[in-house]
Structure formats: structure tokens, C-alpha cells
């Protein structure tokens, strides 16, 4: 006689969680643990891995003493702050636009918004590199034709323009992701509240600040958390566009981990750079989560 396997809810929950946990353990926790261990050793391409010298926090001290590290930290924070600010407001504007148009066009508009998000970052880097090209680039040519400049600007080699050029290319892609996040939040705003506010005489700006923003605040905070985290570890598009140049002007933290680990095959030092980046992102994420928590309601 067949017996039905009866599991209590916690056991079912565990069953559902196990596959995801295995994935996380193999692809995230194990590499993080390995990176932690590597960062304590003087490991490079010539090392005997089993007898590599233990240097404790020596690699971390080397990182702290590196002037390039502090310069890139400054750029990373600046890049993240400016790009997240821009992508949030542009993304919010685009998301609200999809609700403002007639329903028939809503799908088309959303599809257009999603396109930049669907293009891989490294492909975008190649695309923007051509657009910014001084000799044959479209943007420089348009600026010259419009009479705004005498000759095409050196977007990627001029220290005054490189950072802006990199941020612009990055925001072009990420504003669409931000927009997708925020569309979800905006869809949850009940129409009757907006209608009631209209009846009460609230103007558009007031309805936005007093009704829409408070209601989508949890979505906004989660969006900012994800977007800031991604901006802090942005690498592909910057490396593809400028390689950290001109000089080291657009070097970001992630590029250090990459350069030391894969370029210079200094596994110990590269791991220390990666871990410091990880800790910074973790600290910022915890800060955000603390801010988000009061706005979130969980099932008890």
C-alpha cells in the first residue's frame, strides 16, 4: 500500500532551499572562502601552492599603502554616486512615462526601455568606443556639425571628459534596469489614492511626493541597494572603454582585483583587493538594509 510522504511546512521549505543553497555554496561561498585564504599568502604564478609563504595581513597592508588604490577608491565612490543618482532619476522618469502613455503604447515603450539592458556590457563598451572615437565617431561628428565644437573632443583620452563619457555610457544601460525595478513599484500604487488626491485638489507634484514616493519607497530603497552595489563593482564597461585611462583616471576597485589576479597573476594580492571591494560593498549593503527594514512588511 502506497504511503504518501507527508512533510511539515518547515521541511518543505528546507527542500526548496537546498538546491539554491548548493548553488550559492559552490559558486559564491566557496570562492569567497578561497579568496580569503589566498589573501593571506604570498601567492603568484611561480608559487608552490602547498608551501606558499604565509604573510597574514601583509597583502592588505600593501593595498592600503598603494596610492593607486586610494585614487581608484575615490573614483569608484564618485562614479557610483553620480551614476546611481542619474540612473535613478532617468529610470524613474522612464518608468512613470510608461504609465502616462496610452495603454496601447505601453508595451512598445517598455520594450524600447529594456533594449539597453539586454546588451552585454562588454559589447556596449565596444559600441561606445566607436561612438566616442575621435576620428570616425558619430558623437564627435554630430557635435562638430552642430557647431558646438571646432574638432571632435577626445572623449576617452581627455582627463576632463573621460569620467563623464564613462558615466554616460554606463547610465545609458543601467537606467533601463532601474526603470524596470521602479515599474514594479509604480504598478502597486492604487489608482483610487491618486484619484482621491485629485478630488482633494492635490497638484501633480504634490501627488508625486506625498502619495507615489512614500508608497514606492521600499522599491526605491531596494533599487538603490542593487544599483549602488552594481556601480561599486562596475568593471566591464570601464575596462572596455578606457582601460582605466587616461593615466589611471578611471581606474575602479574591481579593475585592481582583475589586474592583479589575472593580469599580473599575483593571486595573494589580487585576492586582497577583491576582498576589500567585497567588504566595502557588504558594508554599504548592510547600511541600506538597515534603512530599508522599517519599510518592509514580512509575513509573520
Amino acid at each position, binding site marked *: 500500500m502506497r504511503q504518501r510522504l507527508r512533510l511539515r511546512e518547515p521541511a518543505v521549505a528546507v527542500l526548496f532551499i537546498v538546491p539554491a543553497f548548493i548553488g550559492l555554496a559552490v559558486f559564491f561561498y566557496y570562492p569567497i572562502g578561497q579568496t580569503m585564504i589566498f589573501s593571506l599568502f604570498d601567492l603568484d*604564478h611561480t608559487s608552490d601552492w602547498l608551501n606558499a609563504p604565509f604573510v597574514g595581513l601583509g597583502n592588505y597592508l600593501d593595498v592600503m599603502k598603494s596610492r593607486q588604490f586610494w585614487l581608484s577608491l575615490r573614483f569608484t565612490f564618485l562614479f557610483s554616486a553620480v551614476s546611481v543618482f542619474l540612473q535613478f532619476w532617468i529610470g524613474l522618469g522612464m518608468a512613470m512615462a510608461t504609465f502616462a502613455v496610452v495603454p496601447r503604447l505601453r508595451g512598445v515603450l517598455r520594450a524600447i526601455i529594456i533594449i539597453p539592458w539586454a546588451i552585454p556590457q562588454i559589447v556596449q563598451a565596444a559600441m561606445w568606443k566607436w561612438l566616442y572615437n575621435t576620428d570616425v565617431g558619430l558623437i564627435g561628428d554630430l557635435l562638430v556639425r552642430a557647431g558646438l565644437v571646432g574638432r571632435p573632443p*577626445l572623449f576617452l583620452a581627455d582627463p576632463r571628459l573621460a569620467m563623464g563619457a564613462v558615466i554616460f555610457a554606463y547610465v545609458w544601460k543601467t537606467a533601463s534596469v532601474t526603470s524596470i525595478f521602479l515599474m514594479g513599484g509604480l504598478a502597486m500604487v492604487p489608482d483610487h489614492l491618486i484619484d482621491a488626491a485629485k478630488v482633494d485638489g492635490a497638484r501633480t507634484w504634490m501627488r508625486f511626493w506625498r502619495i507615489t514616493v512614500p508608497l514606492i519607497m521600499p522599491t526605491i530603497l531596494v533599487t538603490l541597494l542593487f544599483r549602488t552595489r552594481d556601480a561599486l563593482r562596475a568593471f566591464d564597461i570601464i575596462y572596455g572603454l578606457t582601460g582605466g585611462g587616461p593615466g589611471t583616471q578611471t581606474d575602479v576597485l574591481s579593475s585592481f582585483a582583475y589586474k592583479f589576479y589575472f*593580469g599580473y597573476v599575483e593571486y595573494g594580492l589580487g585576492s586582497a583587493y577583491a576582498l576589500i571591494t567585497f567588504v566595502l560593498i557588504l558594508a554599504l549593503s548592510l547600511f541600506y538594509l538597515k534603512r530599508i527594514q522599517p519599510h518592509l512588511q514580512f509575513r509573520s
Partner: protein
Amino acid sequence: MAKRVPIILITLTLILAACGPAPTPEIMERTVEVPVEQTVEVTTVVEQTVAPEEETDVTLAYGRFINVSFGPGPAPFEAIKNAVEEQYPNIDVQLNMTPDSSSAWHDSLAVWISAEDPTVDIYGMDTPWVKEFGSAEWAVPLNDKIPEFDNYAQSGLDVFSHEGNRLGVPVWGSISGLFYRADLLDEYGFEPPKTFDDLVEAAETITADNPELSGFVWPGGKEESLVMVWASMLYGFGGRYFEDDGDCAFNSTEGIAAVTFMKDLIDSGVSPREVTAWDSEAARTRFAEGNAVFLWHNVDIVTWLDDEERSGIAGQWGLIPTPAQPGGRHSGVTGGFAFAINPYTDDMDAAVKVMRVIASEEVQKAFAIAWGPVQYYQGLYNDPEVLEANPNADAMNAVLDTALNRPPSEDYAQVSTIIQEEIHSVITGIKPVETALNDACSRVDALD
């Protein structure tokens, strides 16, 4: 029970037959005459089954140029594939294309080989990586595996050797020089410049009348070519890479003069400010289109500069060693690629076979026809087909004596990055020359 009866009967019959008396042999005596000498021819037919050799793939890692021919012959990859197929039908040569940028190419290899990945069996190795790859044992020593090495110029093999180990089969060599517009220099009465001052004077005079032209173009983008340009300038101004005790000497008086000159070229307009974003391809395009008076470049473009379909200055150019100031030396920075074997290949035997084919005269000749000079296989430049494909090979003779290697270091990837970052900081106006060179030296000296 009935089924068992026949079995019992058969068994009994066999037993009785075995126990019965054996037939008695009949004994007979006969005399047989046997000849003493007899020649017997015995033909033995041995049937042997030889197992066909197993099909296998050998993967080469190289940049996209392996699929490009600048001459009348097939692209080098096609030549290798065909030659291998002819000799070893069971081996199929595959291509794993690496990035164009030398740094990204290096990084890909570093990741693969340090992870002991066998995907790539044979890979293209750039000259500055030899020390690093040799010390990390990332390339299989080939000394006793490639008998064809006997046919090579020693210098070509030495470039790809580390501590006595031959690590690569050279397939292409290069050296840099100064290309100039012979027609314009003639028109304005200038001799090809011997010093940088001569170069600036000629460039300024000619561009004053022809403002659409650039004076002197070179690859000044933040990449490996910038290291080569800087090296030419450094030695051209009398500097050197390292002091006798191994300390960095980039920031010597001569070193500062060299980098100041590079910055001045841009500030004065002799070189367009765009050079700070250019790679070699962008610089040579400007020159080949007829839009520049002087070009710093590797000599390999001599193969097509006279091809009217690809060049706007056919028959109007010349090549000389990079200029040098009094006290400096004319310096042509060397480069080149060889094929090396990944020590973690899962089919060493097949990889060695393919390497021997690559090292053969047939394939080296294909390289010489497709890519032009410089190849190290001896006698290649006596071959009529190679000579026909390289009508300007003699032009290189002017620069061959000026060979200069890039800074030798086991940490070359880091040294190169430091030079790129600091020199690029100067020419883009981010750092003053002395600060950048002092920073460069303190960073290089801090390396293990």
C-alpha cells in the same frame, strides 16, 4: 524423468567408447632416401592489423591576424591547417581566437595556463612574456623536440628562450623604425631626419604649408605600443631602463628629456592630440592615407605600403631608424610572436607534431609570404616566391642594427602597465613629467 533418458544414454555410450580397447598400430619398416642438400622456400604471410591513429584536435590560440594574409599567399592559419592535414590526417587544427590587445591576450593565457586548462594546446607568445612564462613554466621546453630548430637563425630562437630552454617556434618578428614621406621631404629639401630636432623642424615646415597634414603620428593610447614608442625615445635621448644595480632609471635626466619631448610634440601640434587615444592601427591609417609626414611604426607595413589598393602613398615613402639626439642611440624596439606549447595540453604528442609542422620550411615560407618580414627560418629570403611577396624587404636593413628589447622583467606585465599609466598621465596632461617618472620608478622598484 523421460527427458533425462537420452542424456543418460549418450553419456553411457561415451564412457563405453572410452573404456574400449585402443586400435593396435601396424608397425612397418621402410628405408627412405633423403637428399642432403635441399633448398626450401618458405613464404610466410603475416597478417597484421594496424589500428588507425585516433582522430584528435589540436587547438591554437592566436589573434585574428592569423586569419589574415597581407601578401599573395593564404593566411597563416590556413597554411598550418593544410600542412598538418597533409602530414597527419588524423589531426585537426582548431583556432581559439585571442583578443587583439596584447595585454588582454596575455591575461587570457595567464588565466588558462595558471588554471592548468588543457583547452589550448599551442598558443602565440609575445616577446616580453618570455621571462614571465619561462619562470612560471607555462611553456614546454622544446630543445630536443623540434629538430627543425637547426634551420633557424640563432637570434630568433634566443628571443624566445629562458634559461637555456627554447620555449617557442618564432613565426613573426618585428622592429620599429621611422617612416617618412619621401616626396614631401624632397619637395621641401629635407634629408631624412637623424635627430629628433631634425624631425620637428621638417614636420613644422611641411605642416605649416599643409595644415591638413599631421607632422608626426605614433600610437600614444594607453596600451603596449606606447611602451615601445617611449623605449625608442628613452634610448634616443641617451637614457636606459635600469641602472647597473638593477634600480629603475626611467627618471634619469635623459629619461625626463625623452618624455618631455613626447609631451612637447603634442603641445606644439607636431603630433595631433589624438595620438593619446590611438593604437598602432589608427596611427598607420593616418600615414597610409597620406595625412602625415612621419610615422613611428613596426616595419612589417613595408609589405603593403606600396599596394595602391590599400595605401595612398605607394612609392612615396621611406624607412629609416628612429632618430636619436646626440649621445643617444637609434633604437628600433623589437617585438614578435612565437608558438609555444601549453604544458597542460592533454595531447602532447599531437601538439609536438603540429609544432614541427609549424617549424617546417613550408609553413615558415607561408608566414613570410602572408605576413612579410621578419622571419627567422634561414634561407627563406632566397626563395623567389618569398622575395616576390616582399619586394621591400631590403628597406628593413636600415633598421635591423638598431634592435632594442623592451624592459626585461619577470613581472613584465606589471612593468608595462606602470609605464603605460605614467607615460599616458604625462601626455594627457594629468601629471608633470618628473612626478610621473619618479612614481613609475618607485612602483617598478617596489616589485619583487
